[in-house]
């Protein structure tokens, strides 16, 4: 019976590993195929000839290097701004006693449930009024704002799990409100910050619709818009587009690999008491 259950466990795990990895492997193989016709005739096999030129086309035609820099600026700045605001908000909600703080947390966290499409018109209007249309700053502000609910939710939970005694000791040593935040809570919240930051980074890196809406020129476009360079109204060069996609997902994977331990512990922080 034990052997059977063990075998079953491995079958299930291998099945889900296959389901998770197969699309990535398929994407990688498709990015090396000659053209759409080969993709159509041989969708699941290895390329007849490995077309590295697809990657060259992706880099040159879609101008990926400059878009790459824009995406890096946007993603890192959005993470920084998001964590700055979310950590201060979370500190107050998790560590201070005041009336209605649970209501406040619920209202902020409810933002997680709202579909992005519902923000499109208001954000477009706000950015136009701020005269930030077609700028990287517009994307930085919007991405950091969209991620505030999830970041506050995670950080509040994380900061709530830090023992009060540490803050009390700091207070006895003369630490004020700001010092408690900067010298005690922030250093102890690095795992939570890494988790929230990673979520914000991946969102900012992969986001398409706001980037399309809020930018227009090449000087402010991000990678996700570059990928769409290979589509047109009636024709799509899938192989070059897949090559561009492979290039763009690498940073997300790298960020996840660097922070994955912190993400897991950050997500589970505050889940149990003790």
């Amino acid at each position, binding site marked *: 019976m034990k052997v059977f259950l063990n075998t079953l466990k491995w079958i299930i795990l291998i099945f889900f590993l296959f389901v998770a990895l197969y699309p990535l492997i398929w994407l990688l193989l498709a990015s090396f195929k000659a053209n759409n016709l080969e993709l*159509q005739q041989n969708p699941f096999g290895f390329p007849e000839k490995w077309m590295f030129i697809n990657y060259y086309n992706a880099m040159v035609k879609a101008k990926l290097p400059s878009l790459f820099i824009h995406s890096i600026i946007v993603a890192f700045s959005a993470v920084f701004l998001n964590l700055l605001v979310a950590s201060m908000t979370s500190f107050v909600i998790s560590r201070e006693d005041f009336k209605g703080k649970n209501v406040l947390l619920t209202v902020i966290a409810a933002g997680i449930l709202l579909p992005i499409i519902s923000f499109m018109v208001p954000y477009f*209007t706000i950015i136009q009024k701020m005269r930030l249309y077609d700028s990287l700053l517009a994307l930085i502000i919007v991405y950091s704002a969209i991620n505030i609910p999830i970041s506050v939710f995670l950080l509040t939970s994380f900061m709530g799990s830090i023992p009060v005694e540490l803050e009390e000791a700091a207070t006895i040593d003369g630490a004020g409100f700001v010092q408690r935040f900067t010298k005690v809570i922030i250093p102890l919240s690095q795992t939570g910050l890494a988790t929230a930051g990673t979520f914000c980074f991946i969102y900012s890196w992969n986001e398409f619709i706001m980037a399309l809406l809020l930018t*227009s020129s090449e000087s402010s476009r991000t990678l996700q818009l570059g990928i769409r360079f290979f589509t047109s109204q009636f024709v799509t060069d899938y192989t070059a587009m897949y090559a561009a996609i492979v290039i763009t997902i690498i940073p997300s994977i790298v960020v996840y690999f660097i922070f994955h331990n912190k993400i897991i512990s950050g997500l589970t922080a505050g889940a149990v008491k003790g």
Partner: protein
Amino acid sequence: MRKITFLVLSLTLIVAGTVFANGQQEKDKEIVLKWPSIWVGEDSKAGVVAQLVEQFNADNAGMIKVEVEAQPDYDGYEQKIRTSIAAGIVPDIFTMKLNPTTKAYYDSPLLMDFSKELSTGWGKDFNEGTVAQATVNGMVKSLPYEVAITPVWYNMDLFKKAGVSKYPRTYAEFLDAAAKLKAAGFIPTSQMTGGSNAWTSMLWYSHFLASFGGPDVYANPFGTDAYVKAAEVLLAMYSDGNTSMDAIGGDAGVSGGHYLAGESAMFINGPWYIGRVKTEAPAVYSATEVGPAPAAGSQKGAMIGFLQTNFAAAANADDPEKAAAAVKFIKWMTKAENVAKISAASGAMFAVKYDSSSISDELMGKFINASNDASFTIPHLEGVVTSDVITEFGQALGKMALGEATPKEFVEMLKKVQDQ
């Protein structure tokens, strides 16, 4: 270390804010017109359109400059235009498909009405009836530009290999030909339920509607007999191996791909697809003929034709110079010789009168003949119903093809959305 990190990140933010917040900068005097354009990147019109914009900018240096904002993703582009107009901001120049959904744009005072400009003689540059099609309540807030017909493309090589000597003109002939094609290992028709509008199948359905309902089919209430009969024929296209297995859920890449690969014998699309067939599948290009769909009803030789893309512009009521500059640019784009250049390069057809003798493409000539030979022309279904009906079309078609809905139920599903 933390202070340095903080400083570096702050600096990044400031740099991003100052250096890259350049979108709203304005140059002195020169009128800058922003044009979010879909004719960029891989689009067949991209090269010539870029040259025309460049030439216009050179001719008007220091006075008018058209800046093209590349929008290669068409669905995203439509979303952006919708959001912009909903937010009360209209691009200086843009293009749109005119359909019942986008006709709502005509209610916006933010869009320029071209009717006055057209009445000064410009209107004579357009083919008869096209401006009328773009007129709503006396206003022409989108100018007819690209037009299209979507005949059936058929691969005569496959027909011959299957022992079919001529293209089927009736439904009975179609069934006979389909049986022979299947026996020879070919897929009779390319279909698709996916994409935002189930494009290929929506066009097949439009052809059958024309055959059952005649030129005035759309004047009849939605869901009448012709709609159900056309759905029955469309279902037959999805049955008994008359299309590929991947048609359910497949997108334009799937339906077009089977035709390009020489696997399917019949397919529907517009002239913009000519360039791709020519370059990717020259053998298929040589074997391709075009014509009306096999007549399933009493009406024969019907064609689907429509305004494909219209030009539109911001009214700029508070800035008449900018409005005049937009008109000047659109007039430039509708000049006969410029339209001829775009047509020759891309195979696209236009609502503007132009000399098409420079078009040497053989298949394009077949398109023009098919248009001339049509007994009558109606728009496709997408052009006469709201976008939510077309979104439902693909869903309902998938359901019908899977045997979960009858043709009558398929039509009722569409009617329900239409009535809402």
